């Protein structure tokens, strides 16, 4: 495992450390510089293939991008992906759909909001009425920037009608995606898998770490139940969440690598611990990446970050990719 990056400290830790060591005069200017500088862009595509490992990014990483239909979204995303040296991605539906976040129906607690029924109905109507040409235009915008969309992240759930599920896969296909990634329940798999088969796509459930709800993807057994439903079901294994649920991602990949479409490269501490920069948690990020490299596994490795930071998200993604590069090359 990598040592902790000494620059990744909180202000409080930083102030305490320099006060204790008396290094204030030499270190404080560095902190000041960090507060204002952004990392320089990488060469386009330079991080896309690291020793044979296909790297990418979940657009969710770019937390400063507006959501839900803002015209600035796609140009920002393509620019950011250029800046971090990536040419393939998973794009989240909030960066594509002109619907509200509440309208997806995924968040169970959000269904209690008074405006939920109207927003949910509007989102359903938008999905069903939006033609493939809308998504194809987005695909072309990405393609013109040298970026392809490998997976489309849309969280199908029990509030979806079958017509809506069908259109979720139609949208994914039109975007050029091979995989529909969904943070969904295990019981959703039999409902959505037939549409994956119909459209020749992979339905790829994404795990979190609620190990108390047997319908949530958080354990190896949950994924194994989903794999049994259809050959078109493959995992999007989020190694950070998996580790936070006290699972070992290396063990799971060794056992199920032929049923994994994408790895979300994230790091967290065990026991439902916090999100941390890559290498500082218990997800065994280096071991995972080297397993993919050495096994020549055709699994996408997409960075997905969620820890607190004062730096621009694009800089954090660059740092994450540099960590991956140092692990692989």
């Amino acid at each position, binding site marked *: 495992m990598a040592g902790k990056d000494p620059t990744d400290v909180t202000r409080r830790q930083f102030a305490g450390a320099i006060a204790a060591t008396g290094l*204030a005069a030499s270190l404080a200017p560095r902190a000041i510089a960090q*507060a204002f500088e952004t990392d320089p862009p990488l060469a386009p595509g330079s991080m896309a293939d690291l020793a044979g490992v296909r790297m990418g990014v979940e657009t969710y990483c770019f937390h400063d991008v507006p959501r839900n239909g803002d015209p600035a979204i796609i140009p920002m995303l393509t620019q950011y992906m250029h800046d971090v040296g990536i040419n393939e991605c998973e794009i989240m539906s909030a960066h594509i759909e002109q619907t509200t976040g509440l309208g997806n129906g995924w968040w169970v607690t959000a269904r209690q909001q008074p405006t939920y029924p109207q927003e949910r109905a509007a989102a359903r109507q938008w999905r069903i009425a939006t033609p493939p040409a809308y998504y194809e235009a987005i695909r072309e915008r990405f393609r013109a920037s040298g970026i392809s969309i490998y997976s489309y992240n849309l969280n199908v759930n029990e509030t979806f009608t079958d017509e809506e599920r069908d259109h979720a896969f139609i949208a994914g296909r039109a975007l050029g995606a091979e995989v529909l990634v969904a943070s969904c329940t295990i019981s959703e798999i039999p409902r959505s898998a037939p549409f994956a088969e119909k459209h020749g796509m992979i339905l790829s459930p994404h795990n979190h*770490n609620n190990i108390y709800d047997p319908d949530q993807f958080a354990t190896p057994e949950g994924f194994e139940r989903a794999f049994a439903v259809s050959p078109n079901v493959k995992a999007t294994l989020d190694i950070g969440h998996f580790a936070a649920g006290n699972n070992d991602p290396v063990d799971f990949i060794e056992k199920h690598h032929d049923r994994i479409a994408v790895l979300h490269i994230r790091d967290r501490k065990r026991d439902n611990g916090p999100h941390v920069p890559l290498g500082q948690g218990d997800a065994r990020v280096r071991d995972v990446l080297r397993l993919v490299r050495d096994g020549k596994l055709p699994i996408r490795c997409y960075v997905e970050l969620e820890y607190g930071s004062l730096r621009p998200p694009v800089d954090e993604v660059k740092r994450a990719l540099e960590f991956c590069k140092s692990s692989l090359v």
Partner: protein
Amino acid sequence: MKTAKIGGLVIGLASAVIALGVLHAQESLPPRLRGPVLEGPNIAQLKRGQQDYVMRNCHFCHGPTLADARGGGADLGHSQLVANDRGGDMIGAVVRAGTPRTQTAMPRYPDMSDAELSDIAAYVHYMRQRIHDKEIASAALPAGDAEAGKAFFLAHCAACHSGQHALSAAIAGYDDKALAQRIARPAPALPTAPADAPGREEHLRLLELEKPQDVGNLVAFLRASKGKVGADEIRLFAAHPPPVESRFALQCGMCHGKDGLGSLRGPALRGNPDVAALGPEGIQAFIAQGSASGMPAFKLTQRDLDAYSAWILDTGARR
């Protein structure tokens, strides 16, 4: 002597550079995360708390200003648990334990120091006060229920505003709208009042609890009574605290449901054979110690522990 002066100069310079570094770090908070300008006598703590709130990634689910929680993040601006928090005691219990039973499981932060927690709690309360202030100011004054206003007054106001500090003289000088504004923002204006202004902390706390309807009820009560309540009524109220159901709903309802029958965040307690098997002492120890499965450790009074365990077990004992 010369060496000492040079040493002092170096220390002073180093301190200035540290201060500059910290100041710049605060100012470097991205605009999308800054929210409104922070002000008040505890500005330094608020700034630390705001930055820690971001560095601990609280903003990600609960929103940078609390007003824009998204997805499954709890609405801290209206959370009953936050309303009951004093200096981070309730917030800290949840933050350190996480909520592993929620849909995507809020992470736990067991290493958060008391100082950091206190700063974050100060920021959360400050933003919450702003939310309530805005809601009360922008709402049309609801028609009030004087009896409900009296209950609120007895619970939250009478301890100070009776006897020589009665409000009767002040009330006469205001129309209803102005009176409502004064209830929400007693002079001197909050939250920029000096830290030692009489009642400042209590009024800020009250602002976090108040809803527009509470203000309407208080106005109705104050108009009807001129703010006078009898000493006997105050004594009677103090001798009869809110029933256990109400206290449980405020302190535990966020996760276990207001009726103790469970919610999306936590299991049912009443009627749960696993909980019943613990017995009163076991339940009280569980509340006090918490558990690895996400139950925070709460420091409750023995009176509340007795009342809650009896109510959960439905023994009909102390309520």
